[in-house]
């Protein structure tokens, strides 16, 4: 909302600098986006001039050489306007004056004749769009030459650009802002400008000229109409145009300008019809039929749905109610009779229709906030007076008023002690009453026990102030909160903290960082084509994404179901920007179509499942150092990271070969974790993610030579984590016995299977079995390999005897034999 200070000052003028007023408004709830100036940056250098003579320019057909009296004497000004004539009173910019575009006017030679100033047209001082001729200020009481122009027409107006919150439709009106300024500065408020109506001197009976039928009273609680005759349509006076322009409206003609002016002043939109273009003067307000079409004032043909409301005449729709008028009956130069509509519409419906049409207007922005029906007559009064005064119109007596009944003014009670109870600072009853009164509330202070105020809500605040809490807000916001409110802390009776899951997730992130990975935060959005790039088969359930009904772009049309896309994107970006290698991790959510997988707080389940995951991706060249190249960035490099991660959280992790479409065959596995219950017992292992080398075709799609990574469900990791659940175990009284074992094994038997067999055969006494060497070669033969294990045997209650260990070793040897392996001699 643009509020020209010159206009505001007519109703409330604290005499403050605009910046000070802006600051005060901001601290009481009305944000001021900026303070700007409409028109010229300054009024200096602009004066009234009197044209003494006009002669043709010797060297230019279209220029005239004028002698102009500007008070301090006469000066020569070259002018290009066709309408300049001797005897005119005109606005003049003297050398040194600064024009709205910032140009500083200088003396200049125009085709050899020096011009000592400029006679102004409307466009040059942003008063209008008429660039063809100069402004002529003739007529009664023409100001004397040399009078500062700023005293005659508004120049260089300060404009407050308010950011009005959606509850304050009253501040979408100059008078509403004036009331607010009155309340926050204490400056006097002028009487309401709509108090007085225009004299009704038009001829004819209203009922013969116009009639209104409202078919949808629920959507149109009130419709008022007046008729004006003898209207002469023409340009508005300069002062009115200046105010409209400063407020951001384009002047059109006096009738339309008056409707805009009144809307800006009192917040109630109006619409003027050319009565002669409304056949029979009959208007019907009805719901639109689906698909019905109408060309609005902006020249666009609009297709409506059944929810929209139309103002129609016998020939069809002539306006979209509350949003925009139609072309057919708009006021033109030829108009002599005007039907002035001021109505109240259903705000929810206006909002819905304007959203659906993608059409917002000054009118709809006000109607959608639900105006009070009583505001209509305010606007009728104001507009009638202006039409009579400025357009020579005569008001036909009476008002057509189709109303569903006006609601009683709302009365809300305020228990004074509740103010202190809610804001934490005492405000006495008198102060509460004063503040509410300054905001236009009718106030009755009942001196009952503790004090209670009955506040009658101003009509323009009707939809905003409904409850005690709303009154407390009004009282609080005028109370210099920033200076007076104490800062206290609640006596929190709860103990704060992170949940175990949150703590362990943080630990996991810290571990990954400690292992050298950089954290990324990827987009939650995914491209629907990601499934193709990841080579997912058509029937892969991971192709089914949670998708958006109104995405910003195809690349962000769905929600990701894997972290891999984000990791690959980040890897590509960094390698293309010169990084030699990256190890990236993300700790974030994916969004899966299955509902109800994860427990979510609240009465209603979450629509989708959003598990948290830990993803890691490494790509690029092995690390270089002066001691030689590091290990390659491959499956085992990332498996080492996975194992370290799990070990740090006390989780036992296994992987088992499993294909993934986006991983290299043979270097692709499922991560398996066994959840741990509260007693420390491990449950059945569950699949918790994937690990592997990215398929070369997938890597290529992201311009990567190779990459390896994993994606792990955080919930499964934390369920398997022993961290925080450990118990002390005695390891010093009975030390373990260590033995190394070299096993020759067919290639088909995995290391994991070997280890499991060994652990099973070793029984309770075998507390660990770690693979520490791998050998292939002639000595073990084709299709076989040798794996070395370090075994540790221990009993918690005794020192093991050689016989006991030997017995276990025999059992282990036998178990190895069962899978085709043998001890290597």
């Amino acid at each position, binding site marked *: 909302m643009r509020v020209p200070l010159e206009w505001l000052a007519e109703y409330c003028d604290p005499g403050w600098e605009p910046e000070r007023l802006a600051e005060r408004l901001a601290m009481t709830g009305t944000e001021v986006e900026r303070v700007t100036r409409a028109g010229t940056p300054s009024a200096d250098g602009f004066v009234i001039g009197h044209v003494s003579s006009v002669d043709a320019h010797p060297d230019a057909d279209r220029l005239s050489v004028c002698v102009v009296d500007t008070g301090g004497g006469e000066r020569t000004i070259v002018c290009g306007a066709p309408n300049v004539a001797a005897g005119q009173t005109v606005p003049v910019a003297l050398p040194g004056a600064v024009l709205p575009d910032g140009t500083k006017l200088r003396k200049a030679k125009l085709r050899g004749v020096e011009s000592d100033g400029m006679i102004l047209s409307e466009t040059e001082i942003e008063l209008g769009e008429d660039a063809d001729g100069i402004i002529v200020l003739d007529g009664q009481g023409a100001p004397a030459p040399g009078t500062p122009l700023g005293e005659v027409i508004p120049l260089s107006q300060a404009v407050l650009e308010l950011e009005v919150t*959606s509850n304050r439709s009253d501040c979408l009106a100059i008078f509403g802002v004036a009331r607010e300024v009155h309340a926050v500065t204490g400056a006097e408020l002028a009487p309401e400008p709509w108090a007085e109506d225009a004299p009704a001197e038009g001829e004819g009976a209203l009922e013969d000229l116009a009639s209104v039928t409202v078919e949808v009273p629920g959507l149109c609680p009130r419709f008022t109409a007046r008729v004006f005759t003898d209207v002469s349509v023409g340009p508005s006076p300069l002062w009115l145009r200046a105010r409209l322009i400063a407020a951001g409206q384009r002047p059109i003609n006096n009738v339309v300008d008056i409707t805009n002016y009144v809307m800006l002043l009192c917040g109630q939109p109006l619409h003027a019809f050319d009565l002669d273009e409304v056949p029979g003067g009959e208007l019907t307000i009805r719901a639109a039929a689906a698909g019905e079409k109408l060309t609005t004032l902006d020249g666009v043909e609009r297709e409506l749905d059944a929810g929209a409301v139309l103002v129609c005449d016998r020939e069809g729709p002539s306006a979209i109610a509350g949003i925009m008028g139609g072309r057919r009956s708009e006021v033109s130069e030829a108009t002599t009779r005007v039907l002035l509509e001021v109505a109240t519409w259903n705000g929810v419906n206006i909002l819905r229709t304007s959203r659906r049409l993608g059409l917002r207007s000054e009118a709809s922005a006000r109607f959608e906030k639900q105006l009070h029906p009583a505001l209509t007559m305010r606007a009728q009064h104001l507009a009638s007076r202006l039409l009579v005064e400025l357009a020579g119109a005569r008001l036909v007596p009476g008002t057509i008023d189709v109303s569903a009944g006006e609601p009683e003014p709302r009365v809300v009670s305020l228990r004074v002690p509740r103010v202190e109870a809610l804001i934490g600072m005492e405000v006495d009853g008198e102060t509460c009453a004063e503040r509410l009164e300054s905001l236009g509330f009718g106030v009755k202070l009942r001196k009952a026990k503790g004090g209670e105020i009955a506040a009658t809500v101003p009509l323009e605040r009707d939809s905003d102030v409904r409850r005690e809490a709303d009154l407390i807000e009004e009282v609080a916001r005028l109370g210099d*909160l920033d200076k007076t409110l104490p800062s206290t802390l609640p006596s929190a009776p709860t103990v704060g903290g992170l949940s175990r899951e949150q703590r362990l997730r943080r630990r996991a992130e810290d571990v990954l960082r400690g*292992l050298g990975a950089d954290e990324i935060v990827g987009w939650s959005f995914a491209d629907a084509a990601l499934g193709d790039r990841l080579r997912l088969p058509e029937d892969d359930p991971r192709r089914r994404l949670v998708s958006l009904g109104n995405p910003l772009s195809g690349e962000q049309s769905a929600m990701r179901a894997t972290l891999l896309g984000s990791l690959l994107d980040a890897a590509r970006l960094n390698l293309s920007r010169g990084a030699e290698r990256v190890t990236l991790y993300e700790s974030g959510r994916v969004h899966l179509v299955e509902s109800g997988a994860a427990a979510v707080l609240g009465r209603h389940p979450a629509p989708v499942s959003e598990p948290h995951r830990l993803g890691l991706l490494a790509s690029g060249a092995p690390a270089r150092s002066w001691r030689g190249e590091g290990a390659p960035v491959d499956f085992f490099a990332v498996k080492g990271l996975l194992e370290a991660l799990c070990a740090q959280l006390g989780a036992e992790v296994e992987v088992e070969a499993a294909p993934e479409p986006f991983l290299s065959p043979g270097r692709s596995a499922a991560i398996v974790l066994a959840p741990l219950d509260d007693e420390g017992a491990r449950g059945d292992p569950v699949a918790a993610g994937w690990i592997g080398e990215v398929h070369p075709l997938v890597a290529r799609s992201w311009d990567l030579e190779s990459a390896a990574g994993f994606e792990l469900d955080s919930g499964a990791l934390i369920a398997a984590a022993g961290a925080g659940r450990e118990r002390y175990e005695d390891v010093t009284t009975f030390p373990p016995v260590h033995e190394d074992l070299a096993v020759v094994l067919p290639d088909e038997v995995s290391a994991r299977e070997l280890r499991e067999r060994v652990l099973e055969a070793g029984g309770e006494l075998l507390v660990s079995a770690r693979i520490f060497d791998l050998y292939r070669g002639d000595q073990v033969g084709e299709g076989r390999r040798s794996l070395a294990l370090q075994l540790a045997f221990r009993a918690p209650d005794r020192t093991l005897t050689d016989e006991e260990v030997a017995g276990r070793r025999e059992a282990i040897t036998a178990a190895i034999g069962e899978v085709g392996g043998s001890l290597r001699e």
Partner: protein
Amino acid sequence: MVERIEQIEREAAEQIAAASGSAELEELRVTHLGRKAELTGILRGIAELPADQRGPVGKRGNEARQRLEALISERAAELDSAELESRLASDAVDVTLPGAPAPPVGHPHLISRTRRRIEDIMVGLGYRVLEGPEVELDYYNFTALNHPPGHPARMSQDTFYVAPGSLTQAAMSAARAAADGGGEGGAATPDEELVVLRTHTSPMQVRAMEAQEPPIFVVVPGKVYRRDSDATHSPMFNQVEGLAVAEDITLADLQGTLLEMLRGIFGEGREARMRPHFFPFTEPSVEFDVSCFACDGSGSLADGSRCGLCKGVGWIEVGGAGMVDPNVFGFVADGGYDPDRVQGFAFGMGVERIAMLRYGVPDLRRFLDNDVRMLEQFS
């Protein structure tokens, strides 16, 4: 004979002291203490000596032998040590070479670092941390936060809607049930608008209150989404929500809490201020600012120029807050939140905005680049 022993001892001691290497020392040991050594011979021949000499010669000979043995081992230790030192000296390295292999160093993302910082501050103030759904019901994102269907405040947030066809039947039925239970107008919500990407972390206020009776003190960090993308708006960003409800929590408590939090984030000595504002789910509502840490709230820098961070105002806007609107309590009244009995505050703020202010990041979009050259600036 005794004289001879003493002479041998004297000469041998000199030679041992002069020995320059362990090999030479070994030779001397053989020469003087070996089986063929003179001293060994003397001691071996004691029995053949006259009786009166046997005692003195034996005693003296053994003394000499013991002394030489001691001298040799002493000298051996000296020589070992010297040889070790000289070997070490010749094995010196250039200590200024970098460590190798260099363990890689990972870096946190600024968003998670900032988020953790806020969480930690609030945990210290007695709050628990909750997370909630990002794909959320319209009911929680709007209706139960006092944005009834058709409310203009819904317009101010450009909402992403989730296509009903991409959800399960069960999810859509549950979403419909929630909307129908949301009072007037809920039933009119079309399927296309039942499920949204949450536009703020505030829906968790309602979920948290449904799940726990007052008193409740929680913060909710997480991603939020708005259909808006330009230099100052990202369609995805992070917020932290705070909610405190008990019987006697006041606006002054909100101000004190914000002050503690902002000092924790931006440093001791910062001040907080609240400006009245409007949000549908709080009443009264405020926006809150922190005093500028670049100019210490003065609006101008040491050289007198205007502070660029706060644009000369001395204050920087951080987020929105207010006292929980009674209508919001109305949606959870049967869970112990009788609006006449409990009251509390809620606040929300953008994590990116705080990180931008705190670390001087000029553009919101840099956070989603994930450029390691940026990540590596922050440890």
